[in-house]
């Protein structure tokens, strides 16, 4: 049953789902998955908490109808871990128990009332628990509580018994010359004046007579004539009352009923017997179940909490600290806010607060106005909302934590954490994520612990187990939750204004105009997806190992950056010669298709579908081979003399197009007129004479003769002799520095160096930039291309083949030996972290429907492939679990366990062996009691008594174990253990035989 708090968490879950679905932020999916999992785990653990608890009730021996009595219920946790926060509940009362350890029996007394005479089963006692977090309240009926209820007993004075109940041989007590006080009455006319009690008369002012009861007789028979009829209950109650009265008066009483008689007797035991007989008369013999429906529990979602749990501060602090992950917020301002916590804690300790509540409320209203009318419109929602939650936090921290404040504090902490989750990207988030939920869980348990503080939190293991389950479920939920991401959703998002909270990655818009040395370094650290290339046809079944997506190429290098020369040229298109408009050579467009100058409809072409994500803000046409034709919504497309294709406008919102490529390299050179001149003019340009580089180029080229061989030689030497590094900052290192000093750099350095060296050798070449992806998605038949895939390489013009791609960048990321061990370890750690961060971005932050389906697709395929090995693995696992369980259920554990086994501990060893053979010693049994019990049950085991005596001698009498008797003891132990095992086997056989019948 969901509690108020559970409903709130459900609402929070819905909120997280809405936020996640509309923004597509995966960290919100993570939170949502966690919240669902916590709900499920809490529900399961709540039930588990109640499982395996045996209940046994002890009725007091004197229970009367309609009279409240303490019902003592012994609860015992049979197996499993300890149970926490148990409540025993009857319709109007409850009793609680903070912890019930395994094997421990604890008595809980709960007041109960039974309305019916005779044997009753109490059916309305419930065992209830809302452990661990108070999200669910589950209950189990405690059954089998059967007890005997005595009939109602009332004062017999002044009552007339019904004719069916007779107390014979005496008359009812009456006033007379007894000793017991009977009553007072007013003096009537004509009575003997000596009866007047003068003391009382003087007190009251009117003549009073004090009367005494006459002594009753000695032998009484009480008869009940009718035990079944409609009037029987009243008769039985009267009989019980009479019996009580006469027994109290010291008489011998006999009971006669249609069903049973009780002989004369006196004293309380006799009275008990009479009561019991009366209780069992008629309908009293049959056990009836008595139950009342439990009233609906009206418990507040958040009972007060005073003082605030330390975990409350921790939770709020973690939520607050997670705000440091929002890159847009100024960490210094946040640090300033952090000073609130010690102050607030001090305030709570001293119960003195800086401002009265009223002043705070006034201030809060003013702030709200400021937020609505100034901050939100002017500063933007992220800033304004961050300030607002910080203000709320301060407001809550600096006011007394009474009433609903803990609930508000938890809500505020959750909102802050939620806000941070929508904004954060870093891997550190994951640590905050775990810490936040763990701490909040600890808070929720701690605040519901009924024991007074200070207390030992003994639920740590249990919390770890619950949160462990929840985290595992959350991982599953994160993977499995559908990611609806559509234009409609986007619009919904836009209408909520949440777009402003979206991923705040820098747009990636370089590449088209110029590329600076070192520019790709920082870009490559970002794994955001920029485009997705779907391949069709045969390549879907055997995808290439990698996909090289070309963007632009550059001809002019000024020493720092690559640029394009502005060149006009003429080109052949559909048999006509066309002059480029300035640098732009427009392609032919027909019915949505744009045809390149060399498109041949007869030639086979490869189909590449490009989806460009909004992050990529450029007007380049990317393609993976030679662009023959492009299918797009753009009205046209043009290329320039570096074979770079463009759309007429940028596509900031993302777009999609299809490329039919014919051939491996983009090369329009055959269509361009006077290409030889262009080659000579632009593709051999050098930033200036550089003799050192020329010599190096000659040295690298070695004895190679053809341009192809030379280019290959230079690429090989660069790949082998230089190392890859992303550590080179933008513009810090020029190309000489790369070639002669550091010998480390990222891809532009390699490509630039190779390009320049080839030009020194007189081979026309140019720098090309684009992406190199290896991330094949088998489910969707596409390559995912991320910012980190950005790459630069060299295109070399070979007379016999045209433009040909060479990639001088070493494929490996490893660096060559740093100097010191510390540096090496640091680098290794850094790389590990980067790799982790990379995976975090790729698989968590950038998780989407395709990745999801790809994951499941691959999983299913792998499972199908590895079916046999998985079967073997599962069998091994099951065997291991069975062994573990067997090991766990071995002999008894002892409270006083010696640290080291000595020869003197033979008895304990023997006990362990006997325990494994099925004869465990109860922890409360002494050695000789155990020996006696075993010996009585199984004569073969009688010798154990002798060993127990020897053990006592060694343990308590201070005798030492002599060498001579050691062998005897070992022999005797072995014999006993062997007989015990035989007995166990025999017992099993008997059992099996019994089943056979």
């Amino acid at each position, binding site marked *: 049953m969901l509690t108020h708090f559970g409903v709130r968490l459900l609402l929070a879950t819905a909120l997280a789902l809405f936020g996640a679905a509309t923004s597509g932020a995966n960290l919100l999916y993570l939170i949502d998955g966690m919240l669902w999992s916590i709900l499920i785990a809490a529900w399961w653990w709540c039930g588990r908490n109640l499982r395996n608890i045996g209940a046994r009730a002890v009725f*007091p021996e004197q229970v009367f109808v309609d009279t409240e*009595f303490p019902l003592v219920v012994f609860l015992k946790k049979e197996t499993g871990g300890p149970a926490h926060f148990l409540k025993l509940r009857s319709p109007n009362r409850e009793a609680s128990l903070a912890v019930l350890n395994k094997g421990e029996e604890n008595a809980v007394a709960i007041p109960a009332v039974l309305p019916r005479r005779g044997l009753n089963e109490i059916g309305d006692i419930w065992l209830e628990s809302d452990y661990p977090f108070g999200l669910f309240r589950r209950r189990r009926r405690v059954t089998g509580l059967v007890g005997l209820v005595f009939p109602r007993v009332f004062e017999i004075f002044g009552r007339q018994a019904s004719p069916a109940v007779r107390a014979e041989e005496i008359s009812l007590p009456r006033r007379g010359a007894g000793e017991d006080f009977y009553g007072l009455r007013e003096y009537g006319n004509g009575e003997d004046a000596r009866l007047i009690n003068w003391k009382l008369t003087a007190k009251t002012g009117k003549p009073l007579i004090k009367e005494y009861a006459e002594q009753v007789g000695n032998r009484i028979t009480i008869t009940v004539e009718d035990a079944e009829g409609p009037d029987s209950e009243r008769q039985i109650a009267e009989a019980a009352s009479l019996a009580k009265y006469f027994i109290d008066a010291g008489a011998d009483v006999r009971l006669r009923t249609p069903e049973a008689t009780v002989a004369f007797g006196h*004293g*309380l*035991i006799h009275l008990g017997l009479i009561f019991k007989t009366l209780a069992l008369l008629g309908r009293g013999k049959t056990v009836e179940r008595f139950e009342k429906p439990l009233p609906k529990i009206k418990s507040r979602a958040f009972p007060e909490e005073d003082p605030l749990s330390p975990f409350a501060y921790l939770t709020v602090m973690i939520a607050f600290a997670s705000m440091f992950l929002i890159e847009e917020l100024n960490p210094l301002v946040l640090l300033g806010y952090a000073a609130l916590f010690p102050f607030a804690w001090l305030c709570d300790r001293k119960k003195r607060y800086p401002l009265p509540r009223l002043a705070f409320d006034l201030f809060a209203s003013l702030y709200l106005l400021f937020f609505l009318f100034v901050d939100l419109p002017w500063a933007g929602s992220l800033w304004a909302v961050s300030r607002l939650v910080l203000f709320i936090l301060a407001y809550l921290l600096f006011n007394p934590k009474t009433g609903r404040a803990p609930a508000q504090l938890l809500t505020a902490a959750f909102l802050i954490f939620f806000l941070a989750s929508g904004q954060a990207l870093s891997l550190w988030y994951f640590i905050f994520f775990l810490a936040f939920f763990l701490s909040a869980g600890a808070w929720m348990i701690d605040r519901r612990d009924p024991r007074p503080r200070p207390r030992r939190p003994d639920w740590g293991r249990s919390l770890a187990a619950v949160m462990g389950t929840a985290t595992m479920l959350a991982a599953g939920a994160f993977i499995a939750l559908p990611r609806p991401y559509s234009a409609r959703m986007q619009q919904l998002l836009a209408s909520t204004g949440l777009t402003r909270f979206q991923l705040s990655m820098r747009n990636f818009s370089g590449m088209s105009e110029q590329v600076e040395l070192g520019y790709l370094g920082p870009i490559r650290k970002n794994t955001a997806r920029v485009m997705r290339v779907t391949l069709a046809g045969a390549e879907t079944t055997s995808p290439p190992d990698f996909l090289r997506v070309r963007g632009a190429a550059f001809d002019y290098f000024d020493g720092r950056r690559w640029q394009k020369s502005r060149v006009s040229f003429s080109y052949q298109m559909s048999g006509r010669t066309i002059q480029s408009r300035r640098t732009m050579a427009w392609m032919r467009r027909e019915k949505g298709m744009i045809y390149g100058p060399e498109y041949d409809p007869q030639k086979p072409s490869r189909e590449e579908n490009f989806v460009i994500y909004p992050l990529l803000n450029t007007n380049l046409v990317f393609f993976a081979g030679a662009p023959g034709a492009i299918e797009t919504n753009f009205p046209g497309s043009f290329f320039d003399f570096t074979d770079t294709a463009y759309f007429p406008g940028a596509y900031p919102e993302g777009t999609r197009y299809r490329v039919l490529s014919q051939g491996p390299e983009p090369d329009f050179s055959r269509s361009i007129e006077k290409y030889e001149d262009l080659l000579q003019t632009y593709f051999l340009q050098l930033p200036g004479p550089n003799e050192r580089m020329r010599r190096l180029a000659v040295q690298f080229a070695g004895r190679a003769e053809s341009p192809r061989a030379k280019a290959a030689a230079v690429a090989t030497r660069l790949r082998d002799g230089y190392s890859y590094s992303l550590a080179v900052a933008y513009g810090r290192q020029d190309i000489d520095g790369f070639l002669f000093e550091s010998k480390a750099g990222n891809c532009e350095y390699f490509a630039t160096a190779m390009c320049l060296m080839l030009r020194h050798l007189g081979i026309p070449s140019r720098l090309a930039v684009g992406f190199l992806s290896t991330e094949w998605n088998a489910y969707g038949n596409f390559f995912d291309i991320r910012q980190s895939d950005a790459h630069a390489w060299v295109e070399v013009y070979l007379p016999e083949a045209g433009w040909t791609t060479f990639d001088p960048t070493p494929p490996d990321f490893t660096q060559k030996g740093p100097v010191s061990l510390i540096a090496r370890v640091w680098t290794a750690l850094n790389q590990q972290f980067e790799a982790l961060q990379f995976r975090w971005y790729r698989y968590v932050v950038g998780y989407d429907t395709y990745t999801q389906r790809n994951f499941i697709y691959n999983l299913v395929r792998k499972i199908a492939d590895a079916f046999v090995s998985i079967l073997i693995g599962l069998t091994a696992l099951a065997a291991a679990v069975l062994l573990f369980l067997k090991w766990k259920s071995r002999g008894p554990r002892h409270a006083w366990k010696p640290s080291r086994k000595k020869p003197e501990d033979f008895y304990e060893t023997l006990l362990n062996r006997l325990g494994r053979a099925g004869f465990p010693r109860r922890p409360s049994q002494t050695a000789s*009691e155990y020996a006696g019990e075993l010996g009585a049950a199984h004569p073969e085991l009688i010798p154990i008594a002798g060993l127990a005596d020897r053990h006592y001698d060694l343990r308590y*009498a*201070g005798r030492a174990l002599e060498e001579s008797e050691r062998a005897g003891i070992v022999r005797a132990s072995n014999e006993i253990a062997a007989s015990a095992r035989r007995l166990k086997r025999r017992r099993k056989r008997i059992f099996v035989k019994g089943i056979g019948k």
Partner: protein
Amino acid sequence: MTSPIKRIIMEFMKKIDALIGNIRKVFVGDPEVVRLVVVALLARGHLLIEDVPGIGKTLLGVALARSIESSFRRIQFTNDLLPSDLLGMSIFNPRESTFSFKPGPIFSHIILADEINRTTPKTQSALLEAMNDLQVTVDGGTYPLPDPFMIIATQNPIEYHGTFPLPEAQLDRFLLRVKIGYPSAENEKEIIRGHDLYQLASRLDPVLSPAEVSALQDQVDGIRVDDALLGYIVALAAETRKTKGIKLGVSPRGSLLLRRASQAHALTYGRDHVLPDDIKRVAAPVLTHRIVIESQSFGLLRIHESDTIIHGVLERVPIPL
């Protein structure tokens, strides 16, 4: 190899055996009850025998008293018994014009306080000082009681009319509360065979002198108690304090006396060390009357409930091997 204490114990073992044997000549009931009586004597404790009438409470007291060569008084407690009837009083001596103290029946080694709950709280509390400090203060004078001194009190839990239940403080003064229980069929046949057991008890031959009893009592403190067993005693006491159904657990005095009683119990078996079994055996008689249970019941039922609870405690606390 035998330690000095062991030698002394072996010497006295015969005496203890003789004492037990002597009592069993007339008391044909559970031999364990007889042993508990001897335990109370050795531990310098007082004994409260509580059970239904007619199963030999008084007989047991008389038999013990007669088996020791000591002064013995039986005092029938009634509701008009006054403290001075018990302790004695100062009487004016006209010849010397002084008050001289005339000792009451309490100045004996062994007192059988029969039906102790029949007398008024005033008289009951007069026993307090005597039981605790082994001395009596009357009219400003303090008079030591003979050594050994032991009170064997009996009470009948069934009849509660005209009785004054013993207050907790008084109950705490008794080392052991013993239930005798109904005899077995065999034993009952023995009882009714026709011998006047009470007469027989009054004529028992003493087997121990007061000095020997004192010497035996001195040995009790020397019986070794292992540290783990002390831990067990403490664990038992702690358990009574946290057990549901017990309003008031065992006091440290209770734990102390449990240790003493265990030592005496070990001594009755001629051992110089305490075994876990000793503690377990004496725990119920030592502890049941020291706890206050949460129950509305009274009489024998209440005793029975306390017993059940203490046995539950013994079942729950793990015992050192």
